């Protein structure tokens, strides 16, 4: 298994999918069971743990632990690309959520994602001249 990156890729993706669904179902059912009347003594005895496990986001966060299955795939360019892609997408959607909640109500008219471009192009230009081997051209 260690020698074949293709096999490790399929195993990794399938494990992420499987573990995510299993963990999501587990944490959802655990949360539902902890919120019943019969579980009140447990909730009384362990307030902090039950608060953590019955939180609204508990299944979402707990299921994300399945992401560690990405480690099955060897650490090369693909893993880096996937991690960067997901990080930027998650940041973009978090920004959208904050915007919907009104956190950026008073921003100036010229504020926007275009402001990413100057530092990005500056870094790319500098890397093009000095660190060509670090660019995927």
């Amino acid at each position, binding site marked *: 298994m260690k020698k074949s*990156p293709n096999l490790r*890729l399929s195993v990794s993706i399938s494990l992420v*999918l499987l573990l*995510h*669904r299993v963990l*999501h*179902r587990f944490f959802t059912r655990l949360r539902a069971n902890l919120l019943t009347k019969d579980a009140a003594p447990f909730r009384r005895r362990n307030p902090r743990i039950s608060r953590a496990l019955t939180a*609204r*986001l508990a299944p*979402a966060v707990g*299921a*994300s632990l399945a*992401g*560690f299955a990405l*480690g099955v795939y060897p650490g*090369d360019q*693909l*893993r*880096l*690309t*996937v*991690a*960067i*892609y*997901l*990080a*930027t*997408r*998650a940041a*973009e*959607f*978090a920004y*959208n*959520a904050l915007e*919907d*909640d009104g956190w950026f109500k008073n921003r100036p008219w*010229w504020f*926007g*994602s*275009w402001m*990413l*471009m*100057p*530092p*990005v*192009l*500056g*870094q*790319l*230009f*500098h*890397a*093009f001249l*000095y*660190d*060509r*081997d*670090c660019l*995927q*051209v």
Partner: protein
Amino acid sequence: MCSSRVASYCLNIPLITSKDDQLIILPTWIGPLAMVSLMGSPKYQGSNTREIISCLWSPLDCELTFSFSPFVSPILFPSASQTLALSVSHVSAITSSAHPSIRALSCALLHPNEPSCMRTYITFFLNAVPTFAKFFTVMFGLFSLPRYKLFFNDPVKEIDRLAKQVLRMTMFISGALGTSWGSICLFQYLLPRTFMPTKRWFWGGFLGGIWGFLERKTGRDHFLYMTRISIDSLWKVGVKRRWWRSGKNGDVWVFVMSLMLLNAVYELNPSAVTSSAVRKTLGMLRGEGWVDRVKTVDNEIDDEA
């Protein structure tokens, strides 16, 4: 083999959102080399272009300040035995016939036939804008083919929208390229030789990036794509220059944290996840199937159709 192909596919993937045919183009950073060849000098179309450029500005191969040194034209001073330093002597093919009134060596390399930097800058725009406009017309035209019904219903408005999209993108790309490379000449003119010799390239690209203002309303996907390329190269530059150590499984931790953030956002505010494909993938990951929990305008239209 498979991983590098998949990785390049990830970088090249065009994104078509459901509300607008915005797409990710620019599969490779061809810009600077395209700019150099667009300058029009036939000498640049050789295979040693990269070596010339990397030699001039790389502190590893030659002394950096050579690129800022004054240009001594062999035409004006034929009896001078050596007008170029030895380590950059292989660029003499370009500089020996450069216009004698050019003041600086980097200008002699970039625009040997044109003594004025400003005229070179303007000529670049005159060459680049039609070229990119044609390219983007074909590209955006092809990507708006699935929406042909809108063209039949209201052709004037659709063609106007398409034309504006093409023009905005053309000006952004040509402006960014032209300004980044023109800033070499600009800083040569404005700044003393020893001031920020390496950092000025970053600020040159910074000036070029300001052209992104033109695309501020519609360009978020493009900007994020370039940001991803930049983060990737910045990480590798940092590892190479020992700013940070290359950890073993750092990307897995980043993946897990991002997945947590994504799941949390989807849980609290599903419509903040603006990509229908991502919503459906999250639905798959949660065992709900390939369904979209959020009803947007396009989903409703699809349902009615």
